[in-house]
């Protein structure tokens, strides 16, 4: 998605296949095939359903998180919103509300959390890193405060099984349907609307985006509201899947989401990234963790491997960006000068 002249001048097959997203997808396939061949029990019937259920909340939140990061902002409060939503579902259900009503209220509360984040970032102009570290603590604090160290677990079977049941008793969990719909919605929004183009413009240069008619503040507010709303929905799923509403549910999930998004090729500086890469990034981390767990590798080692993978992917991207910038400068010095390409080349180095 680098908006450089050289990138757009390449043939179509190159533009589709030789991208960071395609690399992550290829890697996902390679790792999947490797695990099937080499890891005992990875080809069993339980692998796919567990993998999808485990990655479902990460995948859900990764969609809006991608849009937020493409604008150059970040939302660290998402996991706390998951926890808060979980506790709200639990507490409201405990006081006699049915699960769907409680879930709806939790999602609305999530939207409110997002509105606070978005207002502080977009309209007050505070850095999102600082704002959402604050609300990370704030929302988690409210969640733990509401329920303490206890848990609400008496959810009706029909709702908890909804979070775990499979489509037609096959390997695909039901929850994949709402995830696919939400994912499709975000893909349309990001890649096929002017709102979505505005998101990239903000990430590349928000002053320029403002002058070209993008409503920067409103866009950011909407994205933070979407991030928290989807997180709250993920919180409802989380609660029903584990049949347990707890204040500490999903602690640390934000880091897994952000790691998957960055691994999927989204630039932490904004302006670059695509959702299919992010989906592959989420699944890649899921497959690696699943395969390593089957090998009884300890959780610390799994964290180390995924951490290294993330660092390598960032380093390789930045290194390759520098290399290609150098190559095009050398090439340019031998041919006729192209002022726009120089600007684009310089730009790419800082955004890739």
């Amino acid at each position: 998605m680098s908006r450089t002249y050289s990138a757009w001048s390449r043939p179509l097959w190159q533009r589709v296949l030789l991208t960071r997203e395609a690399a992550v997808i290829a890697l996902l396939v390679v790792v999947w095939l490797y695990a099937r061949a080499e890891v005992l029990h990875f080809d069993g019937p339980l692998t796919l359903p567990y993998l999808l259920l485990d990655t479902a909340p990460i995948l859900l939140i990764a969609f809006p998180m991608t849009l937020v990061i493409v604008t150059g902002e970040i939302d660290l409060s998402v996991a706390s919103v998951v926890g808060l939503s979980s506790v709200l579902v639990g507490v409201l259900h405990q006081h006699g509300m049915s699960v769907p009503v409680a879930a709806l209220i939790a999602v609305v509360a999530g939207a409110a959390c997002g509105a606070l984040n978005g207002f502080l970032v977009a309209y007050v102009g505070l850095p999102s890193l600082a704002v959402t570290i604050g609300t990370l603590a704030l929302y988690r604090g409210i969640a733990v405060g509401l329920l303490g160290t206890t848990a609400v677990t008496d959810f009706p079977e029909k709702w908890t099984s909804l979070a775990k049941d499979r489509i037609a008793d096959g390997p695909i969990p039901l929850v994949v349907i709402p995830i696919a719909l939400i994912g499709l919605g975000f893909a349309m929004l990001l890649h096929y609307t002017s709102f979505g183009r505005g998101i990239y413009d903000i990430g590349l240069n928000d002053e320029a985006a403002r002058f070209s008619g993008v409503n920067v503040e409103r866009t950011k507010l909407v994205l933070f509201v979407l991030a928290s709303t989807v997180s709250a929905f993920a919180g409802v799923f989380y609660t029903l899947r584990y049949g347990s509403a707890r204040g500490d549910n999903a602690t640390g999930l934000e880091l897994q989401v952000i790691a998957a998004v960055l691994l999927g090729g989204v630039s932490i500086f904004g302006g670059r990234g695509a959702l299919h890469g992010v989906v592959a990034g989420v699944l890649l981390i899921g497959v690696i963790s699943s395969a390593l767990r089957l090998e009884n590798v300890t959780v610390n080692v799994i964290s180390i491997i995924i951490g290294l993978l993330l660092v390598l992917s960032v380093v390789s991207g930045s290194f390759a960006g520098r290399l290609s910038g150098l190559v095009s400068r050398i090439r340019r010095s031998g041919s006729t000068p192209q002022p726009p390409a120089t600007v684009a080349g310089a730009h790419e180095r800082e955004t890739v």
Partner: protein
Amino acid sequence: MNTKRFTSLAALTASVALALTACGGSGATDAGDSGGGSTSVTFLPKNLGNPYFDTSDKGGKAAVDEFGGSFAEVGPEAASPDAQVPFINTAAQQGVNALVVSANDPKAICDALDEARGAGTKVVTFDSDTDPSCRDLFINQATAEGIAKVQVDMVAENIGDSGEIAILSASANATNQNAWIDLMKQDLAADHPNIELVDVVYGNDDDQTSFDKTSALLQSHPNLKAIVAPTTVGIAAAARYISTSDYKGKVDVTGLGTPDQMREYVKDGTVTQFALWNPEDLGYLAAYAAKALADGTITGAEGESFTAGKLGDYKVGADATVLLGDPFVFDAKNIDQFHF
């Protein structure tokens, strides 16, 4: 441009492939090697890197080595139920013969355990139980009666069975502690008429509050001969206060504590003995119970019995529960054998 794409692809692929092969070789041997008569047992504590569970897993591994099974220890970094579920799922995928788990939540891991049992894995809980319907057997570390009795016995021995004592508990509404205190009162009234319980105070399982309450107890009861703290936070705080005060050697401290917390107070003479169960034995027993279930020797029905190596014979009680035995008393002679 191509260089860039290929560099990133190559770097990513290489790193993952390296990582997977590196771990693939060593891990495969101790993974679910279920066939051929050897019993595979996976221990899933509340979290890894916890000295208490390191000790219980050590006992479990010793037992599995004794009966020639394959042992694996897995677990999350943080003690949360949602983090335990993927490991239970993995055990189901591997088809291990038995899973020994300390539950972070009695309900949240139930569905995952049920799925694992559906796949043929026997589930033994230890330390922290789930709902009884979600597991085959629970290894109970101690009964309330046993915990109350050992504390009364220790304090009676330490003060010569007569004098004023006080209790420093956790919070005023702590279910476990209140049950123990009630049983201790009954025991004192029935068997130790010369011991007078003059006060029960609550340190809320907070170190500083417990420390302050100890100080207040000693001032308001000048004839106090012992403080009994049925909580690990309380006993450590009380021992710390007394070890640096004039009361050292005059007022005894006992109760429930862990060896690592209490070591220095046992060595400096503030504390002569305290109790807890032995987590190593707990893990050892859980592993033998897991094997008995996997072999079909027992099913979890009340009255069945099995042999747990050096610990001897055990009987399955009500609610598919096996009791480890009386609490374990730690003193200057044995404390250095324990690290948790």
